[in-house]
């Protein structure tokens, strides 16, 4: 697998997450959300992070975005440790309705970060127009976000991120709150933007189909306290479409593989698990296709390989 994150063309990793750990300390108890995460993302990659709900996905993303300081470990972006939100990064949040300024028009929303970058006016307008065109919203620059549907609002957020010309784009379950049809359209939009712009994307989702459909790689996280359970290379063709790709045999295999991992992730976290051994039952005696169960990752791996 591409665990090192070195992209095939030989470029070094753009993003390096090293032994990331995050413990939330409350008044009289602390919660270990993320135990030990290490992975890297090469320049130009589209990596999906998938895990069961409550797997610390958002914690991970906030640490990468510099919105949250890790307890230990570090996030290195383009060779520099992330201390706060780095300039070359854009984030698309799940709550599209709350991440756009309701007192600004679509145009002003997309333009504001560019003003902060002190870009000249002509360049700003060009970027705004191009990015709105790219997400299919070229005709509504004067509308307010709340006048648009949920899917269109998320397109505005996407346009704002694209116009910012980031080196890396983080997306935190961006399509979790839109309907299925809109979601499919937005997934294709992300693929096409990625292919056209060559931007690196880290896409966090709980939806396995979405992760497999979008990604070049899928990182499977355990439940909290989180570790990386698996790093699946998605060897689907670069040109993907909702109907053809999703009904292909390879898609089904990859989906099943990730699904099995996520199912196991629900029952297994980074916490030391003595139960599987204590059961006193040899793992091999169980039917190989039991999706869940006390098997360890190591037991499961050959089964997946065999099913290919």
């Amino acid at each position: 697998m591409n665990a090192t994150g070195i992209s095939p063309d030989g470029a070094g990793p753009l993003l390096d997450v090293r032994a990331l750990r995050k413990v939330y300390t409350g008044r009289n108890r602390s919660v270990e959300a993320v135990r030990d995460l290490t992975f890297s993302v090469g320049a130009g990659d589209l990596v999906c992070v998938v895990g069961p709900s409550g797997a610390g996905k958002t914690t991970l993303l906030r640490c990468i975005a510099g919105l949250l300081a890790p307890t230990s470990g570090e996030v290195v972006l383009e060779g520099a440790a992330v201390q706060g939100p780095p300039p070359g990064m854009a984030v698309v949040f799940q709550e599209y309705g709350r991440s756009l300024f309701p007192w600004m028009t679509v145009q002003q929303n997309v333009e504001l970060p560019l003003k902060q970058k002190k870009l000249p006016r002509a360049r700003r307008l060009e970027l705004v127009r191009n990015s709105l065109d790219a997400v299919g919203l070229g005709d509504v620059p004067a509308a307010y976000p709340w006048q648009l549907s949920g899917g269109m609002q998320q397109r505005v957020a996407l346009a704002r991120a694209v116009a910012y010309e980031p080196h890396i784009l983080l997306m935190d379950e961006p399509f979790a709150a839109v309907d299925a049809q809109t979601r499919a359209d937005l997934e294709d939009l992300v693929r096409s933007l990625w292919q056209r712009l060559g931007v690196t994307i880290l896409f966090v989702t709980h939806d396995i189909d979405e992760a497999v459909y979008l990604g070049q790689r899928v990182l499977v996280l355990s439940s909290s306290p989180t570790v990386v359970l698996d790093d699946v290379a998605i060897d689907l063709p670069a040109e993907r479409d909702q109907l053809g790709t999703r009904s292909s045999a390879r898609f089904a295999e990859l989906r099943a593989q990730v699904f099995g991992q996520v199912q196991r992730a629900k029952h297994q976290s980074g916490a030391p698990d003595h139960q599987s051994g204590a059961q006193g039952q040899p793992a091999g005696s169980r039917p190989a296709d039991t999706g869940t169960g006390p098997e360890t990752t190591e037991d499961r791996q050959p089964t997946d390989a065999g099913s290919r």
Partner: protein
Amino acid sequence: MSAHSTVRPGRRSPGAAVGTVARVLRWIAAVLGLPVALLALWWVLSADSETFYLPPLAEILAAFDDVWLRSDRLRADVLPSLLRLSAGFGLAVVLGVGLGVLIGSFRRVRAFCEPVLEFLRAVPPPVLVPVLMLFAGFGNTMKVLVVLSGCVWPILLNTVEGVRAVDEVLTDTCRCYGIRGPARLWHLVVRSASPQIVTGLRQALSVGIILMVISEMFAANNGLGFSIIQFQRTFAVTNMWTGILLLGLLGFLLAVLLRLFERRALHWYSGLRQFQRNDGHR
């Protein structure tokens, strides 16, 4: 041909104009209906009034013209009052919004200031008039300070509430896109607190008008409050009533001005609210 082409737009616009006029008339009727009815009631009930302190409305209205419009009083009394009010109100906006943003932004500052704020807010501003007279004398400074001392609290406290309620996702968005400093203050903090700030402005305006009058009643040689108290002391009761009417009228006009400002500044907010309501019903 040319006649034909000029007739068409000419024919259409009167129809549209009639519609607009009808709408405006209906609006005026809705707004002025109750005031007119109350004035009519006052007129009828007071028509035969023999009481010295309650002259007939007809007399009051007749005197209004002489007392306020055909004299120098608009310039000599009304204008100074309005200037004092706007100075006090303006300073209260600057101070209230400025301090409110500061207090609302930092939890520590808020915890530190809150008890004092609650205490100061509970002190009725009119009782400060004698105290302020000691420090600031009898001039305009005192009157502006009195207006300020009353107006600042509703603006300050509402701003604090508004700033506290700034959305977390929007805050994160600003951090991610490097929106900080003055841009963050304006585009994120003040704008998202603006509905509450405007609520504060509305409360402050009514307090401000009251305090303007009161401060002029204590010690002044001109102003609306001074004129009214002067009429009262010289038993010019009809004139006094005209002053009270004028005061009400001014208050109404200022409230309308504020409403117009609100409609411009918060038009996004009413749209958003309306959308959310419709969404909820769906």
